[in-house]
C-alpha cells in the first residue's frame, strides 16, 4: 500500500512515527508535565495535519451530489477538521480549571463533526444497498439506528432510575456515542462485503479508528472527565491518524487499478 501513496503524504507518515515516539519519550521521562506537553503537542499536530491532508484530498475535487461515496469521504474529512478544532479548544481550556461548560462546548463541536460523518455514511450505505441488497431499502437506516441506540438505552434507564449523574454533558456524549456506533455498524457491513478487495483495508482501518474514538468518548464521560487528559489525547491522536490513513488509501485506489496488466 505504500507504493500507492504520494510524496505529499510524507508528513502523514512522519506523524505515524511521531505519535508513538512522543508518547514513549513522555512516559520514559517520568515527568507528568513533559508527558502532557508532548502528548498535547503531538495530538494537536496530528489532528490538524490529518484534517489538512484529508480535506485537500477529498474536498478539493468536489463531485456531484449523487456521488455518495465521495460525499461520505468529504464528510469524514470535515469531521476530522471539527475534531482538530475540538482538540485545540481542549488544549486551551485544559490549562484552565476544568469546567463542565468547556467540556460541553467541546462536545458540541465534536457532535457537529460526527453528525456530518454519520449522515454521509448512512447515505452511502443506503445507496450501496441498492446494489448489494443486504436489506430491504426502507429498513436499512432504521435498523442501524435501532442497533446503535439499544446499548445506550439500558445505561440511560439505569442512570434515570438511580438518579446518579455521571457527567453534566451526558446529553451531548450519548448522541455522539450513538452516532459513532451507527458508523461502526455501517463500517462492519461495508467491510464485510468489501473484505476480499483492496478497499476492505481502509474500511478496517476506519473501523479501528472509530472504535478508538468511541472508547475515548465513553472514557471521557464515565472515567476521565477532562477531554484534554493525556491518555484521552493519545487515544484521539492514534484514532485520527488511522482514519486519515484510511482516507488516503481510498484515494490511492485509483493508483492500484493502474498497476493492473
Amino acid at each position: 500500500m505504500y507504493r500507492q501513496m504520494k510524496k505529499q503524504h510524507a508528513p502523514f507518515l512522519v506523524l505515524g512515527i511521531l505519535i508513538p515516539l512522543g508518547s514513549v519519550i513522555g512516559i520514559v521521562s517520568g515527568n507528568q508535565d513533559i508527558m502532557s506537553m508532548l502528548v498535547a503537542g503531538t495530538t494537536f499536530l496530528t489532528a490538524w495535519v490529518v484534517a489538512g491532508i484529508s480535506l485537500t484530498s477529498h474536498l478539493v475535487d468536489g463531485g456531484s451530489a449523487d456521488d455518495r461515496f465521495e460525499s461520505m469521504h468529504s464528510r469524514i474529512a470535515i469531521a476530522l477538521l471539527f475534531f482538530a478544532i475540538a482538540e485545540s479548544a481542549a488544549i486551551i481550556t485544559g490549562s484552565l480549571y476544568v469546567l463542565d461548560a468547556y467540556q460541553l462546548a467541546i462536545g458540541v463541536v465534536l457532535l457537529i463533526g460526527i453528525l456530518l460523518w454519520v449522515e454521509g455514511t448512512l447515505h452511502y450505505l443506503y445507496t450501496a444497498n441498492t446494489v448489494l441488497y443486504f436489506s430491504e431499502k426502507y429498513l436499512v437506516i432504521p435498523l442501524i439506528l435501532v442497533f446503535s441506540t439499544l446499548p445506550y438505552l439500558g445505561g440511560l434507564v439505569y442512570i434515570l432510575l438511580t438518579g446518579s449523574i455521571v457527567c453534566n454533558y451526558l446529553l451531548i456524549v450519548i448522541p455522539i456515542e450513538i452516532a459513532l456506533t451507527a458508523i461502526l455498524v455501517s463500517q462492519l457491513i461495508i467491510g464485510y462485503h468489501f473484505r476480499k478487495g483492496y478497499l476492505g483495508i481502509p474500511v478496517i482501518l476506519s473501523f479501528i479508528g472509530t472504535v478508538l474514538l468511541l472508547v475515548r468518548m465513553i472514557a471521557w464521560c464515565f472515567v476521565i472527565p477532562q477531554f484534554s487528559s493525556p491518555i484521552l489525547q493519545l487515544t484521539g491522536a492514534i484514532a485520527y491518524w488511522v482514519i486519515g490513513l484510511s482516507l488516503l488509501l481510498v484515494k490511492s485506489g485509483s493508483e492500484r487499478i493502474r498497476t493492473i496488466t
Partner: protein
Amino acid sequence: MNIKSLYIIKRETGLCMYHKDFTDAIFDPDLISSFISAMTSFFDEANQSISSRARAFEGTDYKILVEFGEWTIGALSASMDDEILRDKLRRLIEIFEEQFNLLRWVDIDLAVYSRYEKHVIDELLLDQVKPDSVIRQKLNWDLYVKNPEVDSFLKLLPETISVREAAEFLEIPLEVAMNIVANAIWEKAVVLTNPVRPEDIYQTTSLERTEKVIDGVSPETTAALSELDGETPLAIAAEKVKTRDLRRFLDEIAMLAEKDAVERVSEAQATLVQHSSVLQEILSNCARLLGNKMTRNIFVESRNALMDTYTWLSFVDLEEDIDVVVRSSLSSAATKGKILPDILSDGLRALMQFITKRISILIGSEPTNTIISKVMHELKQVYPKISQNVQWNQLTM
C-alpha cells in the same frame, strides 16, 4: 439484408463461372459478368493506382458489391452494402478459389454448381433463418422443388408456420429444421419473414412527414415514430407513447417497414446499442459503490489497456459523470455496416471484462458478481432476447 444474386467471375476472361439468383432473375449472368469485369478493369486503368479498386455499383433499389480474389471477382447484388455481406463474399471467393483452383488454368467441367451450392447456402442463407422466423410456402412449390428432404419437410407442414414450431411438430432438432428451411429458400419454395420483436431497434427513414395521420396506422404508432431514433428498442418506444396493444404496434411497425417508412438498424448498430446499455448499467452500479471519479478511472484504464487491439474503443467515452457516449464516427460506421458486429461485441465484451476485473480488485469478486447478476436480471426483464447476446459468464469473476 435482401440478397438478390451472386456471381463468381474469372478475372482474366470475364467469364461467369458461377451464378445464383435468389429472387427472380434480373440480369443475364454473362452480360453482368462481362460488365463487371470491364468496369473494374476500366477503373484500375483510369486511376493507375494499385490500391484503388471499384468496389460497388449502385442501381435504384440494389447495389452490386464487388470483391477481388487472386484470380476471381465476386459480385453480390443486394439491397444494401455492409461489411457483413462483404465479409461473406470474401469468404465465398476464398472457398471457390481453393476448391476450383484448376479453373484458373483450364476450362473444364468440375461440377461447380453442385459442389459449391452448400457453401453458398451456409454463407448467405443459413444465418437469415432464426428459430422465430416464419416460412410461407409459395404457390405450386411442389412442381419445381427437387430436394427430397425439402419436399417431405414442406408437405407435412401447414402453409405458414414458424421454424421452431415446425421443428417441434416434426420432432426434429431445431438446427436440422433450420438447415432444411435454408435449402427450401435456395429452392425458392418458401418466403422467409422475421417477425418484428419488441427488442428490435428501428429507425425512421421519413424524417419529414407532412401528414399527422398515416393510413392504416394507429395514432400511438404514429406518435412512436419520433421515438425510433435507431437506439431505442421498440418495447421502450411503445412504452414512451403509452401504447396499449404491443402486438398491434409491432404489426404496424412491420407494415411501415414494408413501406420503407421505417427500417431495422444494421446488426452492428443493434450490437453497439445493446452492449452499450450493458456497459452503462455496469458503470452506473459501480459508481454507486465506488463513486463517479473512481468509476471513471476504471473505465479509462480499461479502455486504454485495449486500445492497441481495438482502436475504435477510443470513440467510446464517458460524458458528464458516467454517461456512456458513443462518438459519431463509430455510430456512423455501425449504422452503415462498415464495422462487423462480431468485432464490436468482442471489443465491448473485452472492455466490460477489464472493467469488472478492476472492480473486483477494489471490492472483491462477490460484490462484483452481484453487480453483474443485478444488471443481467434487470436487462432480462426489459430485453429478454438482448440479454442472450451478452456473454455474462465471461464477465463474472
